[in-house]
C-alpha cells in the first residue's frame, strides 16, 4: 500500500490536475455536442472519472485517506444514477424508437 502512494507521488501533482481538467473538459464538450443520450451519459462518466483521479492524487499527496473513501462513494452513486438514467432511456426508446435527445421537444414555450 505504501508503494502505491509513493508511486503516485512520483509524478508531480500539477500533471494530475492538468490531466484531470483535460478529461473533465472532454466530458463537458461531449455533453454539450453529442445528441445520443447514452453517449451523453458516457461523457458524464468521463467527468466523474476526472474527479476520481483528482481526488486520488490529492489524497495520496496529502497522506489522508478521506479522498480515496470519497472515490468509492462516487463510483457507487454514479452507478445508481446511470441505472436510473438508462431505465428512463429504455422507456423513451420504447415510445420513440430513438434515443436522440433532440426528440425531447414536447415541452417548449
Amino acid at each position: 500500500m505504501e508503494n502505491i502512494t509513493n508511486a503516485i507521488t512520483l509524478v508531480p501533482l500539477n500533471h494530475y490536475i492538468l490531466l484531470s481538467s483535460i478529461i473533465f473538459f472532454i466530458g463537458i464538450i461531449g455533453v454539450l455536442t453529442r445528441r445520443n443520450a447514452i453517449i451523453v451519459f458516457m461523457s458524464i462518466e468521463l467527468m466523474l472519472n476526472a474527479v476520481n483521479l483528482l481526488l486520488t492524487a490529492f489524497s495520496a499527496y496529502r497522506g489522508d485517506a478521506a479522498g480515496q473513501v470519497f472515490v468509492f462513494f462516487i463510483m457507487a452513486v454514479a452507478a445508481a444514477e446511470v441505472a436510473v438514467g438508462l431505465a428512463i432511456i429504455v422507456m423513451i426508446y420504447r415510445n420513440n424508437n430513438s434515443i436522440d435527445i433532440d426528440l425531447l421537444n414536447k415541452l417548449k414555450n
Partner: protein
Amino acid sequence: MKNFVEIIQSSINDTLGSWIYLLPEISLAFIFILMIIADLFWAKRIKNLVAIIAVSGLFIVFLEVIDQFILIPPQGVVLFSAMIKLSTAAIWYKVLITISGLLVLLFSLRDFQLRNTEKGGSEYYSLVLVVTLGLNFMVMAQNLLMIYLSIEFVSVCSYILAAYLTGNKRSEESGMKYALFGAVASAVMLYGMSLLYGFTGTLDITNQAFYNGLASINLMSASVALLLTLAGLFFKISAFPMQVWVPDVYEGAPTPITAFLSVAPKVAGIALLITFIRAVNSGGSPSGSVFLASTENLLAALAIITMTIGNFSALWQTNVKRLMAYSAIGHSGFILMGVAAYSMTGQKAILFFLFVYALANIGAFLVIGYFSNVFHSEELEDYKGMGMKYPLVSVAMVIFLVSLTGLPPTAGFVGKFFIFSAAIEAYMLGGNVLLLIMVVFGVVNTVVSLFYYFKIPLNLYLRKAKTEISLDKGNLLFSVIIIVLALFTLFLGVFPNKLIGLINF
C-alpha cells in the same frame, strides 16, 4: 498500537451516542422497507395499504421531528464524527420538509394521472418517503461527502418520480431532462469539491483547517473551486446558471411531484447553502473572512438575475404549471436575497418566507391538480369561467396567488417584508450598494409578478367559458386541504407572530 485502540473506541462511542438523534431518519428508512414488504404481500388484499402506511408513517416521523426540539441542547449537536449537525434551525427545516411531504402524499392519493398509471402507486409513495429522508440529511450535512451523498439521494429518486407516468411522453421527457441536467450538475459540483479537498486537505467544512486552507491560497483558485461546488446547490434551488431545467421538468412531471419539487428540495438546498456560506465566512481573523465581500456580491448578483429571469419569462406563459415553474425561479431569487443579507435575522426571515412560500405554492399546485382532475387540462385558456363553477377553490387560488405576489393581508406580504428588511439592515451595516440595488430589483419584480399571477383570476372570473362541457364534481379531500391551506395563509398574514414567536435560534 494502544493509541489506535483508543481512537477506535472513541469513534465507536461517538457513533453509538449519535443514533438517538437520528430517530426520524431511522423511522423513515424502516417505513420505507415496511412499505416495500407490504406492497409485495398484502397490497392485493387491502386497497391503498401502501398509501395508508406512507401517510401514517410520515405523520409519526413529523411528531418525532417535533420531539427533537426538546432533545437537543440550544447550540445543537455534532454527530457521527462531524458528518452531520443537528441544530434548531435544521429541525425547523425538517419540520417544513415533513409537512410538505405529508401534503404531497395526501395530494397524490386523488391525482387522476397517478391513479391511472399502469404501475400503480405503491412505488411512488415509497419514493416520496425516500426523498424526504434524503432531504432530512441534506439540511444536517456538514461534510463534503455527506453533502454529495444527500444531494444525489434526493436527485436520483426525483428523476424516477418526475418520469413516473410511463407512456406519457411529457413525463418521460421531463424525467430524462432532469436526469441529464442533474448528472452534469453533480459532476461539476464534485469537481469543485475535489479541488476544495485538494486545497484544504479536509472534507469537513466546519473544520478550521477548511477555512485556513482556502484563505491561504490564491483568491482566484479558491473562488473557482467554491463556484463549482455551489453550482450543484444552485441546481437544487433552481438559481440562475442552473435554472434551465425547471420549466420543462415542472411542466412534464405529475402535478403532486411538481408541487413537491418546487418546495422541499428548495428548502433543503437553501439550508445547505446557508451552512456552506457560513462555513466559508467563519474566518478566524478579527477582520472577518476574506470571502465575505465576494460571497455577498455573488449572491446578490445571482439573486437579481434569478428573480428577473423567472418573473419576466413567466409573463408569456400559457400553461399554468409552466407559469408556476417560472414563478418558482423568481421566488428562488427572493430567497437568495435573504441569503445574501445573511445574518441571524436574515436566517429567520428566510425560514418564515420558506414556510409561507411552501403553504402558498403547494396550495396553488393543489388547485391546479383539482382543476386538472375536473377538466383534464392545465392550459390557462381552459380556466375561463371556472371561478363561478367552483367558487370556494377559486377563491382559495386567488388567496394563494396574492400571497405569492406578496400583498397584504396574506402571509406572503409579511414574508417578503422580512426579507426586504433583512436586506436593508445588511446594507445599513455593511454599506454594500449592490444589496440596495438588489432590494430595488426585488420591488420591481414584485410588481412584474402581479401581471402574470393575475392572469389566472382574470381567466377564472372575468372571461366567459367558450364551450359548455359537462364537468365532474370536484374532489372533497382536495377542497378541504385547499381551504385549510388558504386559511393558514390568511392567518399567518394577520398574525405572523404566532409563527415567528416560535422560531428562535
